């Protein structure tokens, strides 16, 4: 466990966080806003990697968990005027419950069906939001009275702190004995079973943790935006971005997923002057990385270390 302090990657991560924390003193509010969103996305991607990289389950619907957390928090605040912190906590809880309802039956089906189930769940949630527009704001979106802060710097620090803490917990978990068992279950479920591990239990736990951080991050994001809309937290395209970020950053690395998310969002924004081309260029880069460096940014570094 304490071996992690001896690894250069750990100290690089610490250094990066320290440098990132100083940004509000010399960077424009526009860039801070961009990074704030990127950090929340980083948590989405890290949570997703815990499921895909470690438990070996492809969740095509990360936005089902994110959206449930985001909308639960938003609706409770906008329609029932509950205090913000309570809304955020209940949002995370709702995501966990929704995740459980989804995963319990889905984890029992084999092969690609788990992924398909999660995909359908997103569509159901999206329809629900549109149909019950009185409650949810429908396609126009939901305006939320409370915000985390009106100061860009404070918002930025909240997001950075949240991502750092989530990353530390998720990474620690992935390296813990439970994480090892999870990884073994993902890689060879038959053998993990024969070694005496209850696969379903471990995968379910991973799903709950993933749902918790996804929902929490989604809830924080709506209180940063001041709105909740299908296009920002539920749409399939958002889910695809979360997945691409995680794969770009490196499967089974957790922290790489955050790097991937920051890269995707920042690169997309910097290419904005190119107009419609921006999405195309970012997607092309992502495609090249996935095709030629399937283990991603951080994964390539780590596997070189493993071979030495």
């Amino acid at each position: 466990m304490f071996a992690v302090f001896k690894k250069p990657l750990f100290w690089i991560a610490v250094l990066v966080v320290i440098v990132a924390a100083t940004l509000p003193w010399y960077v424009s509010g526009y860039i801070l806003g961009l990074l704030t969103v990127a950090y929340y996305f980083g948590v989405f991607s890290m949570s997703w990697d815990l499921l895909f990289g470690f438990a070996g389950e492809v969740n095509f619907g990360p936005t089902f968990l994110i959206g449930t957390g985001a909308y639960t928090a938003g609706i409770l605040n906008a329609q029932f005027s509950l205090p913000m912190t309570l809304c955020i906590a209940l949002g995370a809880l709702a995501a966990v419950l929704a995740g459980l309802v989804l995963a319990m039956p889905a984890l029992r089906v084999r092969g690609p069906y788990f992924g398909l189930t999660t995909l359908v769940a997103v569509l159901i949630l999206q329809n629900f939001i549109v149909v019950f527009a009185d409650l949810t704001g429908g396609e126009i979106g939901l305006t939320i009275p409370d915000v985390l802060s009106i100061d860009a710097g404070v918002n930025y620090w909240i997001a950075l702190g949240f991502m750092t803490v989530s990353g530390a917990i998720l990474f620690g978990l992935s390296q813990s004995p439970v994480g090892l068992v999870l990884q073994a279950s993902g890689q060879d479920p038959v053998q993990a079973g024969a070694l005496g591990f209850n696969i379903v239990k471990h995968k379910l736990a991973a799903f709950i943790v993933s749902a918790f951080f996804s929902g929490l991050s989604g809830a924080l994001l709506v209180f940063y935006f001041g709105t909740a809309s299908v296009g920002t937290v539920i749409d399939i395209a958002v889910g695809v971005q979360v997945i691409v970020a995680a794969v770009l950053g490196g499967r089974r690395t957790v922290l790489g997923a955050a790097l991937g998310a920051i890269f995707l969002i920042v690169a997309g924004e910097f290419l904005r002057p190119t107009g419609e081309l921006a999405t195309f260029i970012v997607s092309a880069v992502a495609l090249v990385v996935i095709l030629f460096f399937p283990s991603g940014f951080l994964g390539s570094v780590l596997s070189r270390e493993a071979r030495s």
Partner: protein
Amino acid sequence: MNATTTTAPVLEVRNLTKRFGGLTAVKNLSFELRAGEIFGLIGPNGSGKSTAMKSIMGIERPTAGSVLFEGHDVAGWPSHRIARRGFGMVFQHSRPLNRQTVLENIMVALLPDSLLMLLPNKALTERAKWIAERVGLAEVMNRRPPTLPFADLRRLELAKAIARDPKVVLVDEPFAGLTLAEVATFSDLIRSFRDEGRAVMLVDHNVKSVAALVDRVLAMYLGEEIASGRAEEVMRNETVRRVYLGGAIETSARPEANFTDTVPLLQVENVSVHYGKAQALQNVSIHVHRGEFVSIVGLNGAGKTTLFNTISGFLPHSGEIRRDGESLRGLSPAKIARSGLVQCPETRELFGEMTVRENLDLGGQHLTPADKDAQLEWLFELFPILKQRQGQMAQTLSGGEQQMLAIGRALMMKPKILILDEPTLGLAPVILEQLSKALEKLRQTTSITVLLGEQNVTFALPHADRVYVLEHARIVWEGDPGRFAAEAGEGYL
């Protein structure tokens, strides 16, 4: 042995039965296993031995029967509960955690099945170190699996299986892929498990490979026990000999001098193939003349399928494969098949949700409509049952019918060279006879060159003009089928 025979068995298997749909893979299997004994479960490919082992371990759920461990019935439990009760299993194929060290991989096996274990525990590390030393991994325990030689990866599997000190150890094909020197070391290790008082069950294809190691053997065929006892007794048993060697075999070989082509139609020269670190073929050379029927005999795992897949262009290899003197290197599998070198694979690979007719039509896709109809008519004469079954989905056919369809589909491609990989796999004797007749007809009435891979000697010899024996990735014997029993048969049991 004598001291242990008085104690109660650790594991008692009673009337174990496992059915997959209409197929009965294990039928009423009963045996017992005592502490301090090594027991061999033997049978040719498709005999149900692996299914029996998986059913004991809970990886497959038994259809009927009981598995008593120290008197408690564990049949139908999930494998993780059975494992915690005191079972360890050594898998033939391993997928270790490549980013963790050998020691960490062993530690995983020691962890409790708990979600609260968030910090590693010093005692576990010490125990993992001890186990690493125990199986001979002390030198490499801080390395990561991708850097290890094959034998060490197998040691890692042994280490994981015995990590939690199981009372029963199940080992799937203990010596697959190992060199002779490594076989000796692994035998010693497995013996030491016995001497520690564990009950060890080995699953393997033939008696010979485990004879020196086991105290008792049970031979299976088509899901049922056919003989049991000490290894020598089982090897002498008539039924066992018939299953592996066949009874009196009538051969009808044409001497090699009869084939007048100066350059053989198919030449395989010094071909070697590796799967990662395991050597699957070692300097294999064979040749087949135009119109000849050549059988390659070898036990499962000897390398037959690898050889055929190499010829069909699926595997990277060293050495040369020539057809009519021209190298096949660089040709895609599709090109090779289209040019008339057609393989009918061991696994049949039928399109299960298509009809019999659709499967055959796909085989004849490249023929003109007139040619296709003629070929189909000829084929229905060879396998009349396929004509009746035309409209039926392929996956609903019986095993024998599926095999006929697989051969039929290959024949629809109008092959010049037909490769048949283990057509007898898991089929009942009566079906074998029908297949055998069809092969005879092929040989008599067509000019198709046939390369047949078989572990069933009775089936492989009667039609063959020439026989090769493949053992441990090498060709060890070549000759006339009439001399096989005398010269190569003994080593084959």
